[in-house]
């Protein structure tokens, strides 16, 4: 028989570690001015432009467009000379005061084409404040709905204590991932939201296999101490946890490296989330079930 690893021994260490990470990320994020919502959520304008003139750089573009206070970033291979220029609506009221949003953006574009010769517009996006508001609301609504639906399913298929464990791990994963976005200054746009919601599925998927085993072992040998059952279950499923995380990671890693500019943030968030999801499956989900069980039987 294989030796059972005592994962639960580290449960307070891991809890402390997670809290420390969240606080650290949060503090760094707040130095950046909190979460960086993309134009999808606050409204704004984003344009990807290719310059023929090789002497153009981020500085010269920023200077030429200084009145619009844009974010300028070079993307893709350096020799392509492609830049992403974006500017957000400072506030929802900005559009109401006098000029409409589109004219502000048209001014930016006109200025750009007037200042630099021979440019190709690769893509252009403008989002009004109303859409941003609508998207933000529905994103929050979805996030909450997803938690409730998964809790219900787990409570129905398993027991309520497993629901608690899975949700603890899920919320842990999402909070850390969001804090990570804040720390890294990753723009929260629609693909990033998709990545976060995928983590919902991934996190719970990863956890359930262990819970399934805890339940099974518990039914066969009910006399065992619950914490031992948990340790045994985690040990038995450990290779599956690692292998699945690895294969998923391979997929995401290749997206991260080769997937191009548009998917870069999406892949970054997923990559981080999968590591965290694997960790929380072992060190957060199961201890939470144990804690709930202990608290209840007290």
């Amino acid at each position, binding site marked *: 028989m294989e030796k059972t690893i005592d994962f639960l021994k580290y449960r307070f260490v891991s809890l402390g570690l997670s809290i420390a990470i969240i606080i650290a990320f949060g503090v760094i994020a707040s130095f950046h001015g909190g979460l960086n919502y993309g134009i999808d959520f606050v409204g704004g304008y984003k344009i990807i432009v290719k310059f023929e003139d090789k002497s153009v750089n981020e500085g010269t573009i920023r200077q030429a467009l200084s009145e619009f206070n844009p974010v300028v970033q070079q993307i*893709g291979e350096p020799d392509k000379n492609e830049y992403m220029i974006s500017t957000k609506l400072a506030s929802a009221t900005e559009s109401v005061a006098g000029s*409409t949003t*589109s004219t502000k953006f048209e001014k930016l574009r006109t200025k750009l084409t007037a200042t630099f010769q021979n440019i*190709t*517009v*690769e*893509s*252009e*996006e*403008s*989002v*009004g404040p*109303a*859409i941003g508001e*609508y*998207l933000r609301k*529905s994103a929050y609504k*979805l996030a909450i*709905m997803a938690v409730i*639906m*998964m809790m219900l*399913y*787990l409570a129905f298929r398993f027991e309520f204590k497993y629901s608690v464990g899975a949700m603890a791990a899920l919320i842990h994963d999402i909070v850390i991932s969001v804090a990570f976005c804040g720390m890294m200054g990753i723009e929260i746009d*629609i*693909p990033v*939201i*998709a990545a976060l*919601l*995928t983590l*919902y*599925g991934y996190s*719970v*998927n*990863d956890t*359930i*296999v262990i819970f*399934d085993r805890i339940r*099974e072992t518990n039914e066969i040998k009910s006399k065992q101490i619950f914490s031992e059952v948990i340790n045994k279950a985690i040990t*038995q*499923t450990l*290779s*599956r946890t690692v*292998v*699945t995380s690895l*294969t*998923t*990671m*391979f*997929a995401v*890693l*290749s*997206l991260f*490296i*080769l*997937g*191009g500019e*548009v*998917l870069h943030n*999406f*892949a970054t968030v997923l990559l981080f989330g999968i590591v965290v999801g694997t960790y929380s499956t072992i060190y957060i989900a199961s201890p939470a079930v144990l804690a709930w069980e202990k608290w209840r039987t007290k």
Partner: protein
Amino acid sequence: MSRGMIYKLFFILFLIVFSALLILPTVGTKGMEVKFAASATADDIEAVKKRFSSEDYELKLNENTIVVSGRNITDAIMNEIRIYNGVADAKLLKHWVEETFLAKKINLGLDLQGGMHLVLQANFEGIQEKIGRELTEKDRNEIAQQALELLRNRIDKFGVSEPSIRPRGNEAIEIQLPGVKDPAGVKKAIGTTGRLEYRIVDDKYSSLAMAWMKQNYKDKQLPESYDELKLVIDEMSKSIELPGTLETLFFYKRDKDTGAILPDYPIVLQKEVSLLGTDIQEATVDRDEYGQVVVVFKTTAEGAVKFAEATSEKNHGKKLAIVLDNKVRNAPNIKETIGSGSGNISGGFTYAEARTLARIIKEGALPVDLKIIEERTVGPTLGQDSIEAGIKAFLVGIIIIMIFMIIYYKVGGFIADIGLILNMIFMLAILSLLGFTLTLPGMAGFLLTMGMAVDANVIIYERIKEEIKKGKSVRMAVVAGFERAFWTIFDSNLTTLLAAFILFQFGTGPIKGFAVTLFIGILSSMFVALYVTRFVYEIISLNKKIKKLHI
């Protein structure tokens, strides 16, 4: 092998062959027919040939058409070619699989083929001011529907074929235009309000025009774009010797399946406008005393006088055409003089038809101006770069996963890899059947599912390993492994399905695409792992001498 197993084998083989067939239109070569106008010069033809001179394409020249075939022919390219000099028409040819099985193919999203995506909303504040009261939710809804009707009516002005116009939520409208060349022109066409007028139909010349059409345009498809239709109209007007006081327009009908407004037959109207759209105050759908669906309208005080004139005795028996942006949308008979300023239009409408008509009339009475609240334009090069990056990431990712599985699970890994390939084929086949639109996030979802798809195999193999360790025979371990793993796989995948389902509810297009690939990927990976792979192991364990499984 038992009889049951032979049936199973045939079932699986059939699924594989059929799926492979279904993905042919998507991954195989596509064709496009470019038709040149009679006036096309040799240079014009050369220009088109030059556009497709790269090795990716193959050209076949006929009398006045060129058939281009290649893998990456899209709607965007078709729309690009359509505005070349001397090109009369360009259309994508259907793949024989599409013809035979009525199958569809996976289309590329605008982020991959390039194009323009717009979300519009009616300017509610302006309308509120005009009618002088708060808009209820029902009002806003109705206004959005009216705007939708207006946009469908002027779709040809966007200069592209294969556009998609559909409501998003209750109040906004989403427009997708693949490969649009002139975004500013499109925005201008959207920014203007509709022009509605009422004009008397000339029956004599209308029937002459009809006869001309029957003779000269019997089997031919009418061009959708107004500019091309205008050429037909000019030719016809000349040949039937139309007097200067009259004008030929087309009667437009709604295609029941797509909702698109298409030209149906010519109709000759007086140039003189009897009433303006603004002469009518209101239009609603109602039922008359016989229970028929009718459109009831009320004119303004000024309009009442004009209406009485238009419906006076000399016009009885004639038709009054309702013309929106130069398209005749209805032409009811004038039965009696209407002097009271209100009347109704009947004509055996269905409720939906009547509602459309009421909306058109309202568009004249209370024009809706639209504002663009979201705009995304992707150029063709960025789209092409994205596809290449996506495909590269996909191939590299999947190859690494496959190699890893073989190293870790040996023969078992090889079987899982075959499962992965089958999974890919099934997924593409289902997405093709659905006529799915593949976006960049969709490609990411596809790859991600591949990473997660092996999970089912991993769970099964680990379980079988454990059972063998417990001392079970290979055969028993396989059976127990699959059985025990079933509910584990079911439960764990169902939560991911829930996440995908919730993502799908998240309105915007690209995310929906991602959710659909995730959803279908999970279903198909469950099927492959629990049915196909299991079958492979059943066959392997038929061999009673087998002592050791390489997993």
